[in-house]
């Protein structure tokens, strides 16, 4: 960094420019105030960034309320609720961490930051369970929509033996690699007598552990609750009268689907520009009963608790597009948040925080609270309809 000694001239008060004050600021307070305003302004940009998705949600909910009532059966309130509690708790620990930083208690900051990171990873783990469960059912954004009312079969040996979704295994590969890597690196660094970096790596390993905590917990819950009241308990939803404009098309589509499903699946095996997902599902969609997640109903494993595909409105896939965009973008911000928290974690281990220099903790905290704020709205908007 091109930091030069500031040229202090004759009429300076000899204010101590501590190493934590950047050269272009006159005082610690000016630095803090600037950073604070800066982060609030950045949060404004984040609010506006998400606003587009809130607009899309509002428009579709107000013009097509039926797709919301049909679609929400696929979303599990309990998992969403757990995620909400996890994030609220992480906000508490983050706020506690900011308080500790203001008092110069670096150890507490490190601990609180670590807990916050674990909560964040747990959130992502639960999300992974939710997403993989949906992808099993073919519930994907609009043009990849592939819902058939059946659970698709797992094919990977790992997935079959664990009784979980193939998708969940795929999503968990990177976290698994990271977990092992961080543990190994931590041990190696400890042996190389670099305690701070070793603790840092251990912290990252614990964070990734949080992902598995969430994923395992979520998966256990899913298996326990198949057919329970919080999830898909309603009778198949009847076609809404207002979709009269394309009701015929729906029926036609439904019948065509029944006839063509296997032909279509065969076609889906062809090369498709961005259809790797579709290919996987082509093979998954033959309805063989190897999947432990369904209720063992026989060859086509139709789950009676799920709506029939013919009963879903033409536009229900737009709900899921919006769902994936909103929760996906939010999850991306959680991931970014984990990265920022890791940075704060490292700096706490090195003992950077003091009562006149704690800005970065405060700023990352504000970012984290915004992520929580957005989820506070997403949860009722997506999960608590009706």
């Amino acid at each position, binding site marked *: 960094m091109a930091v030069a000694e500031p040229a202090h001239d004759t009429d300076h008060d000899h204010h101590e420019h501590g190493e934590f004050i950047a050269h272009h600021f006159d005082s610690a307070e000016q630095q*803090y105030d600037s950073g604070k305003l800066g982060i609030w302004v950045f949060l404004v940009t984040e609010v506006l960034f998400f606003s587009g998705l809130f607009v899309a949600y509002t428009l579709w*909910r107000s013009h097509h309320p039926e797709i919301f009532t049909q679609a929400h059966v696929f979303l599990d309130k309990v998992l969403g609720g757990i995620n909400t509690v996890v994030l609220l708790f992480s906000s508490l620990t983050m706020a506690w961490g900011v308080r500790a930083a*203001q008092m110069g208690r670096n150890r507490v900051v490190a601990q609180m930051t670590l807990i916050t990171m674990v909560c964040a990873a747990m959130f992502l783990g639960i999300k992974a369970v939710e997403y993989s469960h949906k992808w099993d059912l073919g519930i994907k954004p609009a*043009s990849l929509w592939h819902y058939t009312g059946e659970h698709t079969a797992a094919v990977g040996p790992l997935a079959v033996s664990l009784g979980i979704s193939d998708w969940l295994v795929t999503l968990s590969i990177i976290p698994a690699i990271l977990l092992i890597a961080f543990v190994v690196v931590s041990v190696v660094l400890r042996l190389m007598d670099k305690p701070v970096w070793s603790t840092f790596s251990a912290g990252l390993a614990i964070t990734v552990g949080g992902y598995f905590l969430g994923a395992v917990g979520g998966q256990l819950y899913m298996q326990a609750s198949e057919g329970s009241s919080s999830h898909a308990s309603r009778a198949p939803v009847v076609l809404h009268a207002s979709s009269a*404009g394309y009701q015929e098309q729906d029926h036609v589509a439904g019948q065509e689907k029944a006839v063509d499903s296997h032909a279509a699946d065969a076609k889906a095996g062809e090369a498709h520009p961005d259809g790797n997902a579709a290919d996987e599902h082509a093979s998954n969609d033959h309805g063989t009963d190897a999947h432990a997640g369904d209720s063992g109903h026989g060859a086509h494993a139709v789950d009676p608790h799920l709506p029939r*595909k013919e009963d879903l409105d033409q536009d229900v896939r737009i709900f899921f597009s919006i769902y994936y965009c909103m929760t996906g973008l939010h999850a991306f911000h959680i991931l970014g948040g984990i990265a920022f928290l890791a940075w704060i974690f490292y700096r706490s281990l090195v003992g950077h925080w003091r009562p006149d220099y704690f800005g970065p903790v405060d700023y990352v905290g504000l970012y984290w609270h915004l992520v*929580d704020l957005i989820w506070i709205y997403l949860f009722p908007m997506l999960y608590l309809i009706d």
Partner: protein
Amino acid sequence: MAGNHDHGFAHPCPPWILFTTFFTLIALTILTVITAGQPYLGPFAVFVSMGIATIKATLVALFFMHMFWDKPINILTFLSSFFFVSLFIGFTLLDTDHYQNQINAFPREPLIIPASAAPAPPPAATAS
């Protein structure tokens, strides 16, 4: 415990405020889950759930984000963003309301589509 105030601008939040806020948030979360399932709310359900969400958001902002003690400029900055979001939502809602029939009448792709028959262009070309 109440940290040193060398430079006077640190204001550590008292723990009781943090905990009270947290438990209130949990209680409100439970409340919103319960009220979501209630049929008697009818069309007001969405207002109730958004209202509770807003209360929760306000608590997070005021106490976790320390806005209660913050400078007015920061508060004004943050709140102004919601004004502009409401402008955006308001005008688009007003507009789309009027031409929904045209959108609804547009022929759609069938709901269950085989992956290779996407509406776009020949498979040989890349999408980007």
